[in-house]
């Protein structure tokens, strides 16, 4: 059974700009823009969820979507 498609979601208001998610993203999907996190290469995202696991501020996560 195939899982539902997932996409990256940000809550920039909770981001404190520590850069941990970007540093540990294996595909270079994320980067800091100013003091906040931004998705810079969404097409490279492999939905591994490491950013969600590592973000100390719960500002980034994978969310299931109906149509990706």
């Amino acid at each position, binding site marked *: 059974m195939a899982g539902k498609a997932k996409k990256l*979601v940000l*809550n920039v*208001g*909770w981001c*404190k*700009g*520590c*850069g*941990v998610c970007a*540093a*540990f993203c294996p595909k270079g999907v994320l980067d800091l823009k100013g003091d906040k996190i931004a998705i810079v290469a969404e097409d490279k995202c492999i939905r591994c969820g490491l950013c*969600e*696991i*590592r*973000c*100390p*501020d*719960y*500002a980034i*996560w*994978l*969310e299931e979507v109906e149509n990706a």
Partner: protein
Amino acid sequence: MASNLVKKYFREDHLPHIWCPGCGHGVLMKDVAQAVENLGLDKDKVVLVSGIGCSSRAAGYMDFNTMHTTHGRALAFATGIKMARPELEVICIMGDGDASAIGGNHLIHAARRNIGITAIVFNNDIYGMTGGQYSPTTPYGEKGTTAPYGNIDRPFDIPKVAEAAGATYTARGSAYDAVRTTKLIEEGIRHKGFSVIECASICPTYYGRKNKKGSAVDMFRWQKENSVSVEKAKTMTPEELEGKLVIGELSRSEFPELTEQYQKIIDKVQIK
């Protein structure tokens, strides 16, 4: 706006938390929520008790039955809760100073009694909230605001202290190794007696700056590069293990749990 896990287990209106950018505590707090989710516990049957310090703010952020108590006394309050309502899952989140200095006596006696509480220690090796004083887990030679020339005390190994005092499950996780740490917390909650899970956190603001450890990213990287699994550690010499973070289940033993023993006495002596 938050993930489903955060919506379910956190008081969203209290977020973002006040911990510093890159603080390991945020990751560890989510590991606790993930462990409860993985175990499928009813969150209304979970009690989270904390003391005072950066770590102890978790009781304000997490949406269980929560109690934010006095410094070092989380286990004392938790003991009362567990004795009165043994059917509840009682979890304590404490800091290194909270658990092993101010509350050190409570820690060893909770362990000695083997009461069914899960003690989770967010160990950042320093007193963060009060400005970076050295704690009982600050490594030898490292600096704090009260140890400007380097700490001359040997640090406590909290799981070892707990095991020696009678804890029947001890483990160590880390903020970097979130998946394994979640599993260790799950095991600790599932374990019937007193369990202690030390979680190596990072404090980039005080410990990191005082000891020139670099950014939060550098500190997480240090954990990644210096973590050794329990299995691997068994094949290494004490010299090789110097300065390493041994991650995994450290000890497990059997002894009757306190509230069960107490119930047996009640059943025996109560006039029917």
